[in-house]
C-alpha cells in the first residue's frame, strides 16, 4: 500500500461507512435465494423457463450484502455461510462441502473491498461488478474442481459470459428490491 493510497483511505469520506440491513434481509433473502436454487428445477419444469436455472441468486445475495455492508469481515462470513449452505444442499457424493463456501468467501471479501473504495450506487457499475464476480465465481469454482477434486471439466468461456450478462441484468431489479430493506445511518 503506497503512501498515496494510505492517505486516500484515511481521508474523511473516502472510506464509506457501512450501511445496515434489516435482519430479515440478512437471513431471509439468502434463504429464499437458496430455496430458489433448490426449487429452480421444479420451476423450470413447471413454467418451462430454462434461463431460471442459470441464475446464481445466492451469489447475487453475497455480492449485494458485501456491496452494501462494505465490511470485508462480515462479507467473508456471510459468503462462507451462504456458500456452505449451498454446498450442504448439493449431492453428497460428488460435491464436497466447502467448494461454494470458499468461492463465495472470496467473492464476499473482494466485493466488500471494492465497495469500500468506490461508489457502487451506480447501477451500471453494479451490473459490471455483478458480471465480473459471477465470472470470477465460476472460474474459481472451475479451478477448485480441477485442482482439488481432479475433475477434468471444460470451462466454456462464451457460455459463462452470457450467463454473467444474464445475472448482471437480473441483479439490477433484484438489488433495487433489496434496497428497500436497507437501514440508512
Amino acid at each position: 500500500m503506497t503512501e498515496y493510497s494510505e492517505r486516500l483511505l484515511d481521508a474523511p469520506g473516502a472510506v464509506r461507512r457501512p450501511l445496515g440491513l434489516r435482519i430479515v434481509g440478512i437471513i431471509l433473502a439468502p434463504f429464499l435465494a437458496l430455496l430458489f436454487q433448490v426449487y429452480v428445477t421444479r420451476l423450470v419444469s413447471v413454467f418451462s423457463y430454462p434461463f431460471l436455472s442459470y441464475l446464481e441468486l445466492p451469489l447475487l445475495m453475497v455480492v449485494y450484502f458485501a456491496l452494501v455492508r462494505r465490511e470485508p469481515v462480515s462479507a467473508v462470513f456471510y459468503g462462507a455461510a451462504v456458500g456452505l449452505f449451498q454446498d450442504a444442499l448439493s449431492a453428497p457424493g460428488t460435491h464436497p462441502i466447502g467448494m461454494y463456501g470458499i468461492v463465495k468467501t472470496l467473492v464476499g471479501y473482494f466485493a466488500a473491498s471494492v465497495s469500500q473504495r468506490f461508489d457502487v450506487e451506480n447501477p451500471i457499475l453494479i451490473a459490471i461488478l455483478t458480471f465480473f464476480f459471477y465470472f470470477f465465481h465460476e472460474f474459481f469454482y472451475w479451478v477448485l474442481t480441477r485442482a482439488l477434486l481432479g475433475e477434468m471439466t471444460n470451462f466454456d468461456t462464451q457460455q459463462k459470459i452470457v450467463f454473467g450478462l444474464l445475472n448482471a441484468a437480473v441483479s439490477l431489479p433484484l438489488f433495487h428490491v433489496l434496497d428497500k430493506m436497507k437501514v440508512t445511518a
Partner: protein
Amino acid sequence: MESFLTRYRNLTVLLVVVTAQLLLLAWQVKTAEDVPLIRVWAVTTVVPVARILDDVRRYTFGSLQDYFVLVGVRDENRRLRQENTQLKMQNHFLTAQVHTADRAHALLAFQSETPSTTLPARIIGSGTGVNSANVFIDRGANSGVEKGMAVVTPEGIVGKIVEAYPTASLVLLATDPSFAAGVVSQRNHVFGTMKGQGHGTCIIDYVQNEQRVDPGEWFYTSGYDRVFPRGFPAGQVTAVHNGRYSKEIFINPSGLQSGLDEVLVVLNGVHQAIPENELPAPGIHMMPAPPELARNPKAQQQVLGNTTADRLRTAYQEVGEAQGHHFGEGLPGSTPPNFNMKVTPGMKVNPAATRPSEKPAVEPGDTEDSVPVDVTPPEQPPAQPPAAPAGKNGPPAGPTGRQGRSAR
C-alpha cells in the same frame, strides 16, 4: 503481532475462513467422508418451506394453469376428434388387412388340400363392360394360365378365364349373363346348368318341374362342362318354383358372396366326390348328423323322405348295387343296369353277366368306393334290352341322361 493482525484484520479473517474450508474440503476428499450434520440441517430447513411453496404454487398457479388449460380444451377436443377419425380409418384398414390375411390363409389351406393343381392369383381390376361381370387377375399366360380354365375359391366357383394375356387374365365371373357351368344338386342329385343373370343371383336352368330341388340345397359342379372339376361348391338354392317348361331355381353363387381378393386358377383339375354332408348355411351353426344316421345312409333316407319317388330311388339303387353299377359314372353310350330285375334280400348278381362290356368308369381322383364285388345271382334274369329309365320309369338316370344339357 497484535498490530499486524489489527492492521490486516480483513485479510487475516479471509485467510482463516478460507483455510478452514480448505482443510474441511481436503479432509472430505482424502477420507471420502462427508459432513452429514450440515447437510441434515440444511435439508431439514429447506424442504418444509419448499413443500409449502409447492403447495402454494399448485393451488394458485396450478389453478390458473388449469383454467388456461380449460380454455384450450375446445381446440384440443377438435384435435382429438380428428385424431380419433384417423385412428378409426386406420382401424378399418387394419381390420381389412386381417381379413385379407385370413382369406389368404384359407386360400393357402384350400390350395394345399385340393387335389387339383391350382395357381393363386390376385384380382387387380375389373373389366370395363357395362353389364358384364369380369375381373382381371395378375396371372397370365406366362404363369401357365390358359383360356377356359376355372377360377375358384374355397367358398366356391368364381368364374372362368375368357382371355389369358401374358401377365394378366380376364375372368368371366359366375354372375355374368354369358356364364354357364354344369352343376348337380347335393341331396337329390339333380343336374342343371348354372347361369349368371348380371346381378348377384344365378339361376339353375334345364331342370324339369318333376325333379325335386329344395330351398337351401347346395349345388356342386358336375364336371361335365369340362371347365370346372366335379365337386366344387357352386351355390345354395334361395328360391324354387315350377315354371312353364322347367323349374326356376335361384341360387347364391357361394364363391362370390365374400369380397374377392385372391382366387385360385385351376391349372389341372381333378374331379372330386360331392360331399355327403350338407354344408351349413353361412353364418348358421349346423350340428353333425346323429350317429345312427351317419352310420346308415338308408336310415337317413327314411328320415329325409318316404315319398314314392324316394322308394323308387331306393329300389333302383338296390338294383344298381346288385349289379355292381355306380350311378353317375357311366359314360355316354355305356350299358345301363337292368332295372327290371327283381332284387331279393341276399341276392348276388355277377355284374359281368349282366353288363359284360361295361367297366366302372372312375374319374381321376374320384373317392367313391368303386371296388367291384364278385356276386353271383341266384337266378339269372332274362336278357332284355336296356331300358331307358329316364322316361317312363323316372329313376334318377345319373349324369349320362343329362350330360348333354348340363355341359353346355
